[in-house]
């Protein structure tokens, strides 16, 4: 306290340890070099997408060191699972990652089905694919808008939300909600798609393809954007593998790993689509991979809607809310919008699962940041942070 001066309010370090801050920044400042500035990005800063806080040590405009501080949005989902029935934990899955609710739905439902040996009807599998891919598109759209917003362009996010609303309308038709969707059930899905649902999707696909062209002209081809992204924030495959980063990050580093291909689940092996891989290994690669994934997802949805067979959307005798998981454990991975979502369920045959471990891709993806942002200027560090596609509730769980 005594070291605080109004001439030096931001804590420029004359000698280490004189910075006035909370525990994290003080601890972080201990290793700082004299003369460097400790800066808190967040937890309330708009460009950190939610309540992420990153403490950075700055040498002038350059980032010397950084450290993410987590836990501002911890809701103890894993602990909740130990107190609810297996079925009762399903709605939580829509809340772990609010942008990719269906991906989490699938990971948890898949793990429990694997453990109990429940097979889904054919139609349910198709409905799952349609919902998951639409959800992936909407998640990427929000990321796209927010990322470009981080870089200083305001208009694109309005277009992104415009298209996302259409997806929300479609998914609301079957799930009943627009954000925290709880669609999957053990052995199927909650509701069958009606004619309006499918006709809305059929309208949406060409519409979205047109919009993607517009996105390309408006943003992707923009020289300012290119200059902000190309060659910035290198994350090579080695770095990604060391930290366990998955999803578009890993694919932008040239590793064609996508759970839909490498460990096929559901009926993904029936569709014709590509896994976009970029070799450039920079911010622009990650940007390009995600936009490419939108069009690949559109392809999958198109095929799924064309092929969907008639039938039931959920198995007969589907588990009731009081259903008990059989004893044992199972691990199930799906490809979420941000990377590999894994759910590990352990059950001792009791009323609630014994333990549920949720592996959030965002957590590993964020841990890359400290190393990737080292030595960049602050504005580029923000661009790198944006390119990771972070959703804080998922990281904190």
């Amino acid at each position, binding site marked *: 306290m005594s070291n605080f001066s109004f001439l030096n309010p931001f804590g420029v370090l004359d000698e280490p340890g004189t910075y006035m801050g909370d525990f994290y920044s003080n601890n972080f400042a201990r290793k700082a070099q004299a003369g460097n500035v400790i800066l808190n990005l967040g937890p309330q800063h708009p460009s950190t997408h939610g309540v992420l806080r990153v403490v950075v040590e700055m040498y002038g405009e350059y980032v010397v060191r950084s450290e993410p501080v987590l836990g501002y949005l911890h809701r103890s989902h894993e602990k909740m699972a130990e107190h609810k029935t297996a079925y009762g934990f399903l709605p939580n899955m829509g809340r772990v990652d609010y942008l990719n609710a269906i991906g989490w739905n699938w990971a948890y439902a898949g793990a429990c089905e694997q453990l109990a040996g429940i097979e889904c009807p054919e139609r349910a599998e198709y409905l799952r694919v349609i919902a998951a891919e639409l959800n992936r598109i909407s998640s990427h759209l929000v990321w796209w808008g927010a990322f470009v917003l981080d870089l200083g362009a305001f208009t694109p996010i309005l277009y992104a939300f415009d298209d996302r609303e259409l997806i929300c309308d479609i998914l609301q038709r*079957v799930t009943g909600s627009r954000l925290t969707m709880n669609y999957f059930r053990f052995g199927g899905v909650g509701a069958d798609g009606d004619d309006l649902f499918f006709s809305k999707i059929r309208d949406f696909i060409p519409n979205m393809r047109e919009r993607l062209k517009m996105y390309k002209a408006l943003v992707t081809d923009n020289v300012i954007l290119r200059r902000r992204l190309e060659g910035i924030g290198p994350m090579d495959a080695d770095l990604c593998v060391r930290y366990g980063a998955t999803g578009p990050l890993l694919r932008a580093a040239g590793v064609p790993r996508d759970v839909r291909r490498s460990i096929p689940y559901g009926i993904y092996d029936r569709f014709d689509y590509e896994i976009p891989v970029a070799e450039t290994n920079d911010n622009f690669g990650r940007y390009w991979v995600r936009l490419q994934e939108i069009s690949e997802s559109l392809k999958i949805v198109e095929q799924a809607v064309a092929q969907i067979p008639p039938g039931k959307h959920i198995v007969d005798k589907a588990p009731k809310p009081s259903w008990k998981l059989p004893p044992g454990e199972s691990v199930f991975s799906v490809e979420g919008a941000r990377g590999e979502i894994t759910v590990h369920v352990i059950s001792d045959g009791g009323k609630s699962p014994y333990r549920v471990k949720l592996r959030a891709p965002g957590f590993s993806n964020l841990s890359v940041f400290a190393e990737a942002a080292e030595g960049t200027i602050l504005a580029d560090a923000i661009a790198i942070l944006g390119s990771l596609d972070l959703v804080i509730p998922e990281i904190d769980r």
Partner: protein
Amino acid sequence: MKMLSAIWDNLKGLYSLLVGMCITGRYFFQPLKTVHFPRDVVEPENLASYRGPLELARGKTDESKTRCISCQMCAKGCPGNCITVVKSKEGKNPVTWLYDFTLCCLCGACVEVCPTAAIQFSHRLYLVSTSREALVLDLLKDLEERVAAGPLPAAGAGTPDAKKPEARMPDAGGPQKAAGGSAAPDPEG
């Protein structure tokens, strides 16, 4: 050479700027897509599949009678413990059917598990309150009020899978009234 490439760069930048301006300009003259909430509300077709707070379905013979047989399936299956059903001494029908909307995650377990299809999601979008107590809804009373307000326009709309919204859309003063008032269930129609 260096100067030439600098000029070329600037021209390219100018071009991409122009493209952006053209696109934004085109959208500027297109009709408005957003709904300006208090003055304007979402059209009812869109709400047909929206899950609002629970309501009791109308009875099959006597509309103001609930179909609920107090079997407690919904109360036991609910992950949020938001339902309280108390059976009456005489018959099967409940005397109390309380629903705590503050705890509800709108998961649909109760609706799916109910053997008599007595519960359904309403499409009330504008239910707000400043106190927790006001969001504990007495659904039996709510059912009576709805039935008193008039019969349903379409047949079969009382079943959970019916996509027809009840006449829930507030008129011009609706949303503000609901927003400002402390009474929980918003005014009918």
